[in-house]
């Protein structure tokens, strides 16, 4: 019989059931909201929502197959990857078509929409690279970081359309225009947008717990979801503002200001920070021993995210911004004062999490080296615990043996850190995979070591 790290864990089947229930709810919500949008709103977003439904379902289903592909044996993995690629590809193409034809084309034209999308691509890509590199001890796989960003961009944005439209229309029909209405709309954005983004983080945690190790991973995935959401929101605002100001000859400037505000100044401050807090809550919950504390941690992450989002939407307009040259200083100050404290708190959590993770990985690397099983050698421990030493080792391989050697050493280092991470979780009884999984990781490291040329 294969021993499990936590033989009494009943969480695993529960996790999958919760994940399936959430996915089913999302699909139902999307279908209902799309039909209601189409029937009652008959607006451009309403039509986009309905026609884009198939694209959203294709992408959701494709990403689910993709993340699960790596849990299968290599023979099945290839088949799953092909299926996932076809579904995601079809979904993405359909989505772009829907967006181009029914949304942006009608407001600003396809050329402007394409330009806006292109303008936001390098900044968002840069931010994703930075966010992924923040996890300096144990980087997350690109496929999951990109899946998180895609969910933020496509599924989360689609989820909020109906809810926000209903809230906004009801508020505009019932409340006094001015600060009261603005406060209500700030609550709307904070609650609905953070819930829709947070669901993506929660699903990643439920379905891919093996790749969701701690608070640092939560922050990375949460920020990736936020960056994806910010990407699509930026395109939407840029095209909309362009179409409003273009007849006055100021469309390009207006879109440019939006781009700067959302893709430069607010790139890490806005959605990325808010959703990273949800990820932090889920990441901390991942390692907490009791269910009660897990629920509290996840709820706490959501509350911080909602409050951060609310504070910006409700109070940004109260910050004095005049029409003189000082406006440049003032808009930067406004972001720094209103969003800076949240981002600073998140960075503090991140730094603390990285140190916590680093200490434990070091401890596990030492313990594994002491076993003498050969997966980790004592002289490798100082290298594996330092990102700079690891990079130095890879560059050394690159200089001596070329690019292939660089990637082989990289794979070896990743497998060694995976092993240390597995040991850490097993020691803390945070795993429900059998002990055999750890032995398999060890064998993989030894196998990779044979392939790596002597450095």
């Amino acid at each position: 019989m294969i021993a499990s790290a936590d033989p009494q864990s009943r969480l695993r089947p529960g996790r999958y059931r919760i994940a399936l229930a959430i996915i089913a709810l999302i699909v139902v919500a999307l279908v209902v909201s799309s039909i209601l949008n189409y029937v009652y709103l008959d607006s451009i977003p309403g039509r986009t929502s309905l026609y884009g439904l198939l694209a959203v379902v294709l992408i959701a289903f494709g990403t689910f197959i993709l993340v699960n592909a790596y849990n299968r044996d290599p023979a099945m993995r290839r088949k799953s990857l092909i299926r996932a690629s076809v579904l995601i590809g079809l979904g993405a193409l359909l989505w772009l078509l829907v967006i181009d034809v029914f949304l942006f084309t009608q407001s600003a034209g396809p050329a402007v929409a394409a330009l806006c999308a292109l303008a936001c691509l390098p900044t968002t890509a840069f931010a994703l690279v930075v966010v992924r590199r923040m996890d300096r001890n144990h980087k997350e796989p690109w496929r999951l970081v990109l899946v998180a960003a895609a969910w933020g961009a496509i599924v989360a944005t689609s989820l909020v359309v109906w809810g926000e439209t209903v809230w906004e229309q009801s508020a505009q029909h019932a409340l006094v225009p001015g600060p009261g209405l603005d406060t209500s709309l700030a609550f709307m954005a904070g609650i609905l947008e953070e819930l829709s983004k947070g669901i993506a983080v929660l699903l990643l945690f439920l379905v891919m717990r093996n790749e969701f190790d701690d608070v640092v991973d939560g922050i990375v995935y949460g920020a990736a979801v936020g960056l994806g959401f910010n990407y699509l929101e930026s395109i939407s605002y840029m095209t909309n503002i362009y179409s409003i100001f273009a007849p006055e000859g100021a469309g390009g400037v207006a879109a440019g200001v939006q781009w700067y505000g959302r893709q430069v100044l607010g790139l890490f401050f806005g959605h990325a920070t808010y959703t990273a807090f949800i990820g932090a809550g889920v990441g901390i919950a991942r390692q907490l021993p009791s269910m009660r504390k897990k629920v509290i941690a996840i709820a706490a992450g959501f509350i911080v995210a909602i409050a951060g989002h609310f504070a910006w939407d409700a109070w940004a307009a109260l910050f004095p911004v005049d029409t003189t040259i000082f406006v440049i200083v003032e808009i930067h100050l406004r972001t720094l004062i209103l969003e800076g404290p949240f981002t600073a708190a998140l960075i503090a959590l991140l730094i603390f999490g990285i140190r916590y993770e680093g200490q434990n990985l070091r401890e596990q690397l030492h313990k594994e080296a002491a076993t003498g099983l050969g997966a980790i050698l004592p002289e490798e421990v100082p290298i594996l615990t330092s990102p700079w030493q690891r990079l130095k080792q890879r560059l050394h391989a690159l200089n001596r043996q070329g690019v292939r050697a660089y990637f082989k050493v990289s794979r070896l280092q990743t497998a060694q850190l995976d092993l240390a991470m597995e040991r850490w979780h097993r020691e803390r009884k945070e795993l429900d995979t059998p002990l055999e999984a750890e032995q398999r990781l060890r064998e993989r490291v030894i196998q990779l070591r044979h392939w790596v040329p002597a450095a």
Partner: protein
Amino acid sequence: MSTRPAPTSYDHLRVLYRTLLVLATVSAVILSIGLVQFAYFEPIGENTGATATIVGVYKYNSTTGQIEGSDRSEFPREGEFAAKVDWSSLPSNLVVDARWYDSFGTLRGQVGPATPADLADKSLVPVLVPEGYHFVLPGRYTFVVERLRNNLPVEVLGRRFVRVDRT
């Protein structure tokens, strides 16, 4: 190998957990301030039962200061428009005003505040073209007739929505 988490590790996790709880507490305070702010600007029990009669929204000629044509809910971008209010439909003891807001929530025209009797000769409330622009901005415009208390709008007595086309 020990099956229990190392004590130092657990302490680190506890610090992270408690830090998150502190942040959540601060966030709950922020959200509570938001609720108080909402309650201040949207006070409960401010319903007089009075209703303002908005006769309609019409094409407006800013040169003559007159309205033209019939009541409409959609206007082309280059067209100016104004709402017509029957101030006599309101009790004379109220302090009221009428305002236009554009889709950004920016004030784009106003008469008042004053009593309905004082506003009798100001039945037309035109939308103003923003300074430095040739036309009004497209989008959804909201026209409201409001009751004020201590210079603060507390009740909407009448409301109309108008769409200005992008082209």
